[in-house]
């Protein structure tokens, strides 16, 4: 999850850029991007002199109780450092929310630093160890256990309690994901699952109903056959983690398997169900429903260029597709090709990095910031996310946000990465195996078997290391 191009954010931005066209544009945009990556992009300083802000605070505090609860903040003026990896297409959205917060809350000045996720996980631990870590940060659900085990972030059960947050306020799986060894380290901000994009133009050109994309195995294969008859390869199968590896993982769950055993002592992606699932992916290539050797993101680029009918990709692509002129597309939850529902998903969560010197006011301000952002996560959701908080998901405004709202109805089917320290090292072996199999370099069953046994070894090492 941590290389710059597997970060969905930078990826999307880069796809947007390349979608826009010429090499010159690409060069210009990238060189400016690499500059902003090196430096830190501060959000607008809170010049909270706006007259409107006072009334906003008043209305906030009217609805809330004491300051320590985190629902309001009335301590002295403080500055909070907020670090995250929301680069690319996400950056304008998080900036907007933080700016809103700053102008609504004159006493708290949030200074935001945005890093590439890959840099983020090198900088954050180093900053925390030297006592200059931020007051609040955001990270993916599967990074939490490793960072918690390494004492980079601290338990925040008290924050959750003070904010009155519980499993009921969120989807259960995403709430559980913020736990490590029974303690809460993360408070969910959003959910971003793998979703099913269909190209309406390609479907109608092939004589298929563009408004009724196939949602089960028989229909899906029938549609692929029809498309193949018209010379269209309908499901380009990516051999890469983004997003072929996520596709493969989703199918394992749909076929009734899982990637790890319930105690996380070993990798189980060599099970019959998993072999069946990955074989289906490989057969897309073998039977000509997908070209061979699909490059990184070529599946998505082909989809945007009306050369590919179906693309299983992150929900974060929604804005990019919406802003592509002439694009006729739809999106819904992943179809049920196996015996049950199942989709890969991840979640951004708020965490509190360890401080060498605790500052009570900053802690209270941070609590208030987390709670405020959670309540105002609708604005953030517009970057192509599903708000984690149930109240926001149920709000009329979110219900109008399509296709996100419809996709959110299947949230219960979303599987999140396991809350085990160092699990990413083991999962990397799975993505390797999928890569080998989809590129037709290795036999499915044998490559899954050998990679699972390597992963099991890694998990045993990690269990020893992180305890």
């Amino acid at each position, binding site marked *: 999850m*941590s*290389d710059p*191009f597997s970060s969905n954010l930078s990826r999307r931005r*880069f796809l947007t850029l*390349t979608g826009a066209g010429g*090499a010159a544009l*690409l*060069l210009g945009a*990238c*060189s400016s*991007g*690499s500059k902003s990556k090196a430096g830190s992009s501060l959000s607008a300083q809170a010049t909270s002199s706006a007259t409107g802000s006072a009334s906003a605070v008043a209305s906030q505090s009217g609805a809330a109780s004491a300051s320590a609860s985190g629902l309001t903040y009335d301590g002295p003026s403080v500055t909070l450092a907020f670090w995250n990896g929301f680069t690319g297409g996400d950056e304008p959205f998080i900036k907007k929310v933080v700016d809103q917060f700053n102008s609504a809350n004159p006493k708290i000045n949030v200074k935001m630093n945005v890093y590439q996720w890959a840099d983020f*996980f*090198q900088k954050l*631990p180093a900053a925390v*160890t030297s006592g200059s870590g931020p007051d609040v940060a955001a990270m993916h659900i599967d990074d939490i256990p*490793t960072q918690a*085990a*390494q*004492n*980079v972030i601290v338990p925040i059960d008290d924050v959750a309690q003070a904010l009155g947050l519980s499993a009921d306020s969120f989807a259960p799986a995403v709430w559980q994901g913020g736990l490590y060894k029974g303690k809460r380290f993360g408070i969910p901000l959003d959910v971003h699952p793998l979703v099913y994009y269909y190209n309406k133009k390609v479907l109608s050109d092939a004589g298929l109903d563009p408004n009724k994309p196939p949602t089960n195995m028989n229909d899906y294969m029938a549609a692929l056959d029809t498309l193949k008859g018209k010379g269209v390869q309908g499901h*380009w199968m990516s*051999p*890469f983690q983004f997003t072929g590896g996520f596709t493969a993982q989703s199918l394992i769950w749909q076929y009734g398997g899982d990637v790890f055993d319930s105690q996380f002592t070993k990798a189980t992606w060599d099970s019959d169900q998993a072999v069946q699932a990955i074989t289906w992916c490989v057969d897309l290539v073998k039977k000509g429903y997908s*070209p*061979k*050797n*699909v*490059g*990184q993101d*070529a599946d998505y*680029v*082909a989809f945007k*260029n009306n*050369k590919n009918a179906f693309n299983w990709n992150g929900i974060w692509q929604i804005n990019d597709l919406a802003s592509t002129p002439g694009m006729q597309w739809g999106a819904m939850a992943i179809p049920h090709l196996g015996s049950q529902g199942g989709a890969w998903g991840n979640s951004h969560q708020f965490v509190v990095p360890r401080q060498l010197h605790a500052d009570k006011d900053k802690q209270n301000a941070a609590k208030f910031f987390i709670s405020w952002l959670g309540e105002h996560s609708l604005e953030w959701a517009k970057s192509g996310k599903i708000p984690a908080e149930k109240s926001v998901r149920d709000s009329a405004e979110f219900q109008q946000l399509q296709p996100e709202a419809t996709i959110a109805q299947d949230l219960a089917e979303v599987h999140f990465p396991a809350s085990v320290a*160092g699990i*990413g*090292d083991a999962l990397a072996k799975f993505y*390797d195996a999928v*890569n*080998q199999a989809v*590129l037709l*370099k290795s036999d499915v069953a044998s490559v899954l078997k050998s990679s699972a046994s*390597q992963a099991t*070894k*890694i998990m045993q*090492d990690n269990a020893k*290391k*992180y305890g």
Partner: protein
Amino acid sequence: MTVSERIVVRRGVAVARRAGPVRRNARATPYLFMAPYLVFFGIFILLPALYGIWISLHDYDYLLPHKPWTGLHNYVQLFTPGSRDSGDFWNSMIATGIFTAASVPFLVVCPLGVALLLNRVFPGRTFFRAVFFAPYVLGVAVVGLLFRYILDPNVGLVNYYLDKLGISHDIPWTTALPWTWISLVGMTVWWTLGFNAIIYLAGLQDIPRDLYEAAELDGAGKWRTFMSVTVPGLRPVMLFVVTVTVLASANMFGQSYLVTQGGPGHSTRTAIMYIAETGLRQFRQGIAAAMSYILAIVLLIISVMNFRFFRQKERY
């Protein structure tokens, strides 16, 4: 001017400056001149390098309080077939070797040709010098993204035009061997050719003109002049170019990180990539440090051989 007069003159200058003359031959002088650099070299290179040896003898994660001493275990692991890292590590070393062996000849020869051309007098010479150097100023991220799209097997420009020309339309430039190596070497040559060319150009301009005139008077042809004047004249420059290029190629990271993601499988994952992954992502700094030392020793041996080779040739 007598000796005493000279002393007087020097004294006079000294008095005017109100400071003693620089004692150029004092014992401490050279060290004082080098001191600023030595301080930085010591703090940022020497000390970390030595500390790395210490790290490599532990199961080291700088974030965990417990860093067990493991002695030579990390090194033993790397040389034990079937251990968690040995297979992947040596494959990455082989990948580094393949890339170095494939790229260095091109990066040594092509820039020389370019430099010879650019050393001639012709209209627009400065412009072309800039053109050949231009790619070098681009960051690896830019070059990587650019080639990822140019070389994409299904939607890339190269295959599109090959198809138009009726040659082929589905060469897997970035997803299958040996094409990935051809792509990586090709883009690296395009990208860094300008740097070596500029160095050669400087070297060419250092060769005394009278040697060429003498060769001409002796009736030497173009080839003979090249072999007997240009090549020997460039020998020190070539030693530098070869050494630096070998090290740069052995440190290749960005190109395969961006274009092939180390794939297909891990066949283009270089040693540096694997070390970074192990140390900075899996937080296993002990074994990553051990790998770095093995890589460093291998590069040291190659550099020494390289120096020997060029020195032998110098005695002709």
